[in-house]
């Protein structure tokens, strides 16, 4: 059978960044400001009413009027014209700094990140050094050596700024370098140059563009600062030198300082807002896709729901075996629904009308493929649904209380004490900053209210109980010092530390090696026997189900399609989906058989043109 791809519309990802920025309010506004400033600077020779450098003694500190639109400065030069021409130099200077920073930072970052080795060591060391140096001081020192050249100081500043790009690119590249698709490209015989150009530059492009806008703003501000201190090139007009002039004459003509300050502020704010807008847009590029994927999921579930209704909706329920244990009902889930709120106000339903019961001392397996809603069902019992998820209907009765409608405060009393949880990924569920011991003791002290020494004694006993050979050593170890199998044992110890009535295990052995899995399964069976717990075991592995479960529910597209005692499911599955799953099991299939070279005679090359 062929899986057909979902009929998704072409996503917004292909729309250019520029177009998307135009629809972003602050993005469009800041682009407009920057465009106007750049245009005005570029058209300075046409727009300017005076020559920016011609001093006129009669017009010294002239007020704004018909002769000088914005007045004149201390040398009688026209402020408006100077502002326009200064724009050329200020912007160009900032661009020079940006270009230098980009070329140095991105190239070095790519090389160091991709190849590593000595270049990585040297450039990282240099970067650290440069970041430690105060930029302003270096620029002042440089001026003393090379003289008051705006271009040179901007180039030097560009070098000082390059670490910003280096670190950004370096981090992205080291993250991508070990991606499998880069390995695949290497196996395909692509040159390093091509791999960097094709696979790696695309990853760093977005953050570099964002960073560029920020750096441009910084460069303009620093340049203005330098000139303001009077350390600039006196022969060219810049916003900074105008600021300097205005500050000297602030009491005689207060407006002089206003115009350059305004334009510097405006440009810097516009650049920063533009960077933010670009970050919004570039990072949101996955937004619409996610939405459409979820929409597709909704459609799929709606389809499945429709189909199920046509088929008669109800799950196949197998009767209990005669003489089966009729112990107390621990958990009763009725008509449970779980949904995720979407940004557009609708709700995506991932679990629909699920019924589930667990008796004391019974292991109930929840089986299904990815996306079938089995984990969502388990999490909703713990009331630990991820962001945006909520129980949309039904009830979860546990010890006479409806967990679906319990307050968060009451729920905290149930969670951990009465209902415990074992996760799939043992390593990511232990905090690397604390020792195993402290992570085991903390919950016991809170939920059992016992002293530290008592908790320590119990934690050590628990570690011994879950089969850890040297409890004392593991107690004092940090999570990274133990293996995955050990970590899972620790988590199991933690889960049973408060002697819960119900244990929810979400794929507890999926991340483990098969020999470790066998031991963890044995451990779970022993503990379950000893504590007489009810267990909900979420898994996709029918071997695990056969090993541990008394009862099985098979889930598909958020619904339970078949439920019953474990033997009834394995030996007499009636729902087509359950049968399909059981048929996919490989355990009993015949081995491949003997190698038969006669059957694989060399066939003609299919693609002559490809041969090199």
């Amino acid at each position, binding site marked *: 059978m*062929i899986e*057909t*791809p979902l009929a998704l519309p072409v996503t917004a990802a292909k729309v250019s960044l520029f177009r998307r920025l135009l629809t972003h309010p602050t993005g469009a506004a800041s682009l407009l400001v920057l465009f106007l400033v750049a245009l005005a600077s570029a058209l300075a020779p046409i727009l300017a009413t005076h020559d920016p450098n011609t001093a006129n003694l009669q017009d010294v500190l002239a007020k704004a009027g018909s002769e000088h639109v914005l007045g004149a400065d201390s040398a009688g030069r026209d402020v408006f014209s100077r502002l326009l021409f200064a724009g050329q130099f200020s912007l160009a200077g900032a661009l020079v700094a940006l270009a230098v920073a980009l070329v140095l930072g991105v190239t070095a970052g790519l090389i160091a990140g991709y190849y590593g080795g000595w270049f990585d060591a040297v450039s990282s060391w240099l970067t650290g050094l440069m970041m430690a140096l105060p930029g302003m001081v270096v620029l002042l020192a440089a001026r003393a050596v090379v003289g008051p050249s705006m271009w040179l100081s901007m180039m030097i500043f560009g070098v000082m700024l390059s670490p910003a790009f280096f670190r950004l690119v370096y981090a992205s590249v080291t993250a991508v370098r070990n991606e499998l698709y880069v390995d*695949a490209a290497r196996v395909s015989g692509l*040159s390093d140059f091509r791999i960097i150009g094709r696979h790696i530059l695309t990853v760093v492009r977005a953050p570099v563009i964002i960073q560029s806008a920020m750096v441009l703003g910084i460069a303009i501000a620093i340049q203005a600062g330098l000139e303001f201190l009077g350390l600039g090139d006196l022969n060219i007009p810049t916003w900074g030198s105008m600021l300097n002039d205005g500050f000297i004459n602030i009491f005689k003509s207060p407006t002089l300082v206003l115009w350059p300050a305004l334009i510097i502020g405006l440009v810097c704010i516009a650049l920063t807002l533009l960077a933010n807008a670009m970050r919004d847009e570039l990072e949101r590029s996955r937004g619409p896709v996610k939405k459409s994927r979820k929409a597709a999921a909704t459609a799929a579930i709606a389809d499945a729901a429709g189909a199920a209704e046509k088929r008669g909706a109800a799950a196949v329920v197998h009767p209990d075996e005669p003489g089966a244990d009729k112990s107390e009902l621990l958990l009763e889930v009725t008509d449970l629904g779980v949904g995720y709120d979407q940004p557009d106000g609708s709700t995506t339903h991932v679990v629909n009308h699920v019924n589930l019961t667990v008796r004391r001392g019974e292991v109930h397996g929840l089986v299904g493929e990815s996306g079938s809603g089995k984990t969502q069902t388990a999490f909703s019992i713990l009331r630990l649904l991820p962001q945006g998820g909520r129980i949309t209907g039904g009830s979860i009765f546990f010890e006479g209380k409806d967990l679906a409608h319990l307050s968060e405060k009451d729920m905290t009393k149930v969670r951990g004490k009465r209902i415990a949880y074992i996760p799939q990924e043992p390593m990511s569920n232990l905090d690397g900053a604390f020792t195993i011991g402290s992570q085991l003791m903390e919950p016991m002290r809170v939920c059992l209210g016992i002293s530290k020494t008592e908790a320590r004694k119990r934690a050590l006993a628990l570690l011994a109980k879950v089969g850890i050979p040297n409890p004392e050593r593991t107690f004092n170890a940090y999570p990274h010092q133990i293996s995955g199998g050990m970590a899972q044992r620790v988590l199991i110890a933690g889960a049973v530390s408060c002697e819960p009535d119900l244990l929810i295990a979400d794929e507890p052995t999926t991340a483990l090696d098969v020999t470790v899995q066998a031991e963890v399964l044995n451990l779970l069976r022993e503990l379950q026997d000893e504590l007489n717990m009810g267990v909900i075991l979420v898994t996709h592995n029918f071997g*695990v189900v*056969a090993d541990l479960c008394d009862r099985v529910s098979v889930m598909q597209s958020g619904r339970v399609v078949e439920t019953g005692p474990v033997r009834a499911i394995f030996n007499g599955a009636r729902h087509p989906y359950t049968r399909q799953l059981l048929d996919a099991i490989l355990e009993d299939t015949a*081995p*491949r058989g003997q190698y038969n070279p006669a*059957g694989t005679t060399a066939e003609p090359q299919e693609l002559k043109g490809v041969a090199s």
Partner: protein
Amino acid sequence: MTETLLDVKDVVVEYPLKGFRREPFKALKGVSLDIRPGETVGLVGESGSGKTTLGRAVLGLAPVTGGSIKYRGEEISKASRAKRKELSHEIQVVFQDPYTSLNPSMTIEQILTEPLTVRKVERQTANKRVADLLDQVRLPQGAAHRLPREFSGGQRQRVAIARALALDPKLIVCDEPVSALDLSTQARVMELFIEIQERTGVAYLFVSHDLAVVRHLSHRVAVMYHGEIVEWGDGEQVTGAPEHPYTQRLFMAAPIPDPDRQAKHRADRIRLLELQNQQDLQAGAA
């Protein structure tokens, strides 16, 4: 006697550890096996056994510090970049994780034509080749202009297989290619592997931790443990009646999807472990 396609002899792979003058970490401690044309060799082992490292060593992605890897009689363990480029015609790869082995920002067509354009195949020929490849892995033609994220795990793995087939290789290293897939998808992708092999005569080095998968696909099976091959031979023999104690433990550990047989299997496993413990004790005493 048919010729040998790949001959791996006493291969050692060492990774330098951080720190001055520290002994490097030996991922492979002298591993030997061979693959014939059109044959599937399964490589089973648990995490850290070195099975993935062996696959990467064949691909030139792991530092081989000893032994030899010969492809059609030619030493390739120290091949230059140019030689590797030539070899990419012969040896290809399908990785485990279909979510990270495809560049998320490239369309399926770009992904499939990439290995072709390196060889300066004309655009038209390349496009035709893409259509043919999509056919081979049973994906609809409309898939070419879509991005990887629009596909499910099984479909992505089909794309990865198509990319590996693009250059008509003689050997594909498959690194856990079905481990991340759902049960029914896994079965279909495995059928695809067999079907492609029967049609094109490509050989597989099939790395997996799943014994059932390896049993189903492999003509011969090698079992790895701590960087060494502990058992190596005919697939039916190794997976049916393993001789090495580790292989026996490994096969007893996998649960059988049948409650009654699993209960017996479980008891057998515990008996086996006790027996092996006793043997170890006796060996220690002797």
